[in-house]
């Protein structure tokens, strides 16, 4: 049968699964970028707080716990801030790792899908 222009590459269930997987990864990638931005901001805030703490000469610091500001001795505040710093930087690291892994998977899928469909498919951000 003559192919009169326009690609007639058949889309198999495997291809559909790959396309869907790419879509999922892309969505997760954007979510991760937002989460990373928020985590970085939180990190900066904790940095600033920690610096302020060093500068202050008060013995009791008003530290926010929940919705209230509790009067907490400076040492305890230092410990709490350190713990928060650790948690946030660990979280940030995990997010960055996930982002790398997703980018790698997306590159793989792009190779496969462009390889089969060439121009009939567009996987770029507009």
């Amino acid at each position, binding site marked *: 049968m*003559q*192919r*009169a*222009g*326009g*690609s*007639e590459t058949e*889309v*198999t*269930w495997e291809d*559909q699964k790959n*396309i*869907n997987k790419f*879509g*999922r990864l892309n*969505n997760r990638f954007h979510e991760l970028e937002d989460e990373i931005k928020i985590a970085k901001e939180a990190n900066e805030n904790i940095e600033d707080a920690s610096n302020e703490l060093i500068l202050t000469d008060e013995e009791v610091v*008003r530290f926010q*716990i*929940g*919705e*209230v*500001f*509790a*009067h907490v001795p400076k040492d305890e505040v230092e410990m709490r801030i350190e713990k928060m710093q650790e948690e946030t930087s660990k979280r940030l690291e995990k997010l960055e790792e996930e982002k790398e892994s997703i980018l790698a998977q997306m590159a793989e899928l792009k190779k496969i899908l462009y390889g089969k469909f060439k121009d009939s498919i567009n996987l770029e951000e507009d």
Partner: protein
Amino acid sequence: MAQPSSPPQSGSEAVAERRGIPAASFVKDVEAYLNQLGLDVNSTLSFLQERIQQYKVVEMKLLAQQRDLQAKIPDIEKCLDVVATLQAKNSDEALLTDFEVSEGIYARAQIKNADSVCLWLGANVMLEYSCEEATTLLQNNLENAKASLEVLVADLQFLRDQVNTTQVTIARVYNWDVHQRRVKQASSSQES
């Protein structure tokens, strides 16, 4: 969502539906699909478009639920933090806190020997609990919220897959139609 029943799956391992969301059946052969549906190309295309709209409506609802849960979880964590702090501070000296009375106005409170806290349960109901019970309750709520969020995220992923599949099907039906017209034109110009 009331809608015409979708044609049978052509040999795929996908689920037929998930929590009330019907799956988009994968089309192996466009011509066979059109014959199964018994509709012409334009009706098929509008049927598929309608499906996508329905999916989008459900997506909006799920996204709103997701946002609510994502806001609720840090709130519960903050409450747990407060209860833990109250429990830890069991010495004789009162815990001094500054809390917001109104926007921009704070008042100082002395909290002595807090063995119990009151938890807001919603619907204008507040109950008093011992610190341990409160921690247990809040932990449970936190775990439930996290579990619900996970299920919700999986639902959203499933939904997006169905939208993708339907969009690809629309493209293929359209391409098939274009191809058919070209073939018909080519054969009719050959005859003349």
